[in-house]
């Protein structure tokens, strides 16, 4: 099964992770801009962060044969810093024009403050202006209410529902999302959020339509192999290969392809000789080369 992990923060992960992900069948990923575990206090930090998502991380992923796309936004947590928020919002239009930017995100609620709501709405407008979908984070605390508010806002501003992916769903929020035209993401985590058997049970109950699964792996206790592990759990639960393929490939591809910037056609073979020594991510190992050239 070819796998798309539509939400993973590779900036925080190692090359071991990339290697294991590629071996587990992960072919393409989306890295949403989020917070880094501690607040940034300068707008310039976001410029460097965006540059790294568009450049360095994309290159790192390519060295392991993984296609890397990103979503850019000011995240809900840092939306609460007014000076920062205005500065980042002024930066975004430039970056939202770039190749490989497949949505505006993560936007949404964290503490559900008025500032978060304002930034959510203004960034939905940005998405509309750049013809991009939105990737919406739902809060950990008071989750059901936060999800309801998010869906109400999308409806209020008449954002096309098929262009919105509502993430981090649970048993209690999934029916709310599926009642709209939005897509429903699920973050499979070691302890919190969602786990593999629960996910398989949800798919048995609701079917595969508009269902998306991700690892949301980041700098905390998380697992970049959660999507392939969920594939196994779904298979063991008797879910058809066809439904599984829809969930871990066709659905995220269909959602992000709405950006017009999801280029999955050409894929250069991995040739790590280009990286041998020096500044590459390889440090003295034997490079992997395509069979035809070796």
């Amino acid at each position, binding site marked *: 099964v070819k796998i798309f992990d539509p939400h993973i923060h590779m900036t925080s992960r190692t090359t071991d992770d990339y290697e294991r992900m590629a071996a587990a069948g992960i072919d393409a990923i989306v890295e949403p801009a989020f917070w880094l575990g501690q607040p940034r206090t300068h707008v310039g930090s976001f410029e460097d962060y965006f540059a790294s998502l568009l450049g360095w991380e994309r290159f790192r992923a390519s060295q392991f044969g993984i296609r890397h796309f990103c979503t850019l936004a000011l995240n809900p947590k840092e939306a609460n810093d007014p000076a920062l928020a205005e500065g980042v919002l002024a930066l975004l239009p430039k970056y939202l024009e770039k190749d490989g930017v497949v949505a505006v995100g993560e936007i949404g609620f964290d503490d559900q403050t008025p500032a978060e709501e304002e930034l959510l709405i203004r960034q939905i407008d940005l998405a509309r202006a750049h013809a991009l979908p939105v990737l919406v984070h739902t809060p950990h605390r008071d989750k059901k209410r936060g999800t309801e508010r998010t869906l109400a806002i999308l409806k209020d501003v008449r954002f096309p529902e098929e262009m919105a992916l509502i993430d981090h769903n649970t048993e209690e929020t999934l029916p709310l999302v599926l009642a709209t035209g939005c897509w429903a993401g699920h973050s499979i985590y070691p302890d919190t959020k969602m786990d593999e058997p629960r996910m398989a049970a949800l798919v048995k109950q609701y079917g595969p339509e508009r269902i998306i699964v991700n690892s949301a792996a980041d700098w905390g206790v998380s697992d970049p192999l959660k999507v392939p592990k969920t594939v196994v759990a779904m298979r063991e639960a008797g879910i058809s290969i066809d439904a599984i393929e829809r969930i871990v490939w066709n659905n995220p591809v269909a959602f992000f392809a709405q950006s017009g910037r999801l280029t999955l056609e050409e894929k250069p073979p991995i040739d790590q000789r280009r990286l*041998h020594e*020096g500044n590459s*991510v390889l440090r003295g190992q034997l490079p992997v080369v395509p069979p035809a050239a070796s």
Partner: protein
Amino acid sequence: VAVPSDAKRHSEVILHGPLDRERALAALEAHSGMDLNDWRDLGDRELESLFAAAARLFGTSPVAALAGRPADEVARGLLLQIQVGRANGSGLALVEDRFRCGDNRERQAILRALPWLDDPRRFVRLAVHACRTNVTPVFEAIACDNPYPAEHFSDDAFNQMVLKTMFVGLPVARVVGLDRRRSAELRRMAEGYASERRAAGRPVPDDVALLTGGLLQLGEHAA
């Protein structure tokens, strides 16, 4: 004597040396079927948007008529050249800003376009800084098949770039103007590298001989 076999392995299409701006414009028009003279009438915002969207508009495949360069890269270079041409004194700030905010392909296009820009010497700090990148294709854009470094780099910066070309496994033969910039210092650095490799029990890249032995007429193979 032929160029080292390595030269062909590292890129899908071997570049045919520097591409001058007039030839690039004509060839891109022929390739895309668009009249690119219209670009001169556009405002800065529109030119910047086209620069960002070039891969979607022109594609990323190498085009033989563009000296084997990808069409988006050539389009970006032409767009940048127009904008810098009318920026007068703020051309340096414009190019530095575009580079800083650029993704990998945009950065590659900027580096390849440096020889096309007015008063190219003012971009030397940017070009030397670009050599510090960890993204091999971005490094390749300044180090390989690009006349800019031999033209404008100091000896120190040029020598570091040539050594790094070898380090990252790119063919030294693709450094334009190497023969002209050969020096005792570059030879000493290459010999030092070979000695370090031998001491570590690791193979010495063939290209070291090109820098220490002076076996070949180098650097202009692509011209």
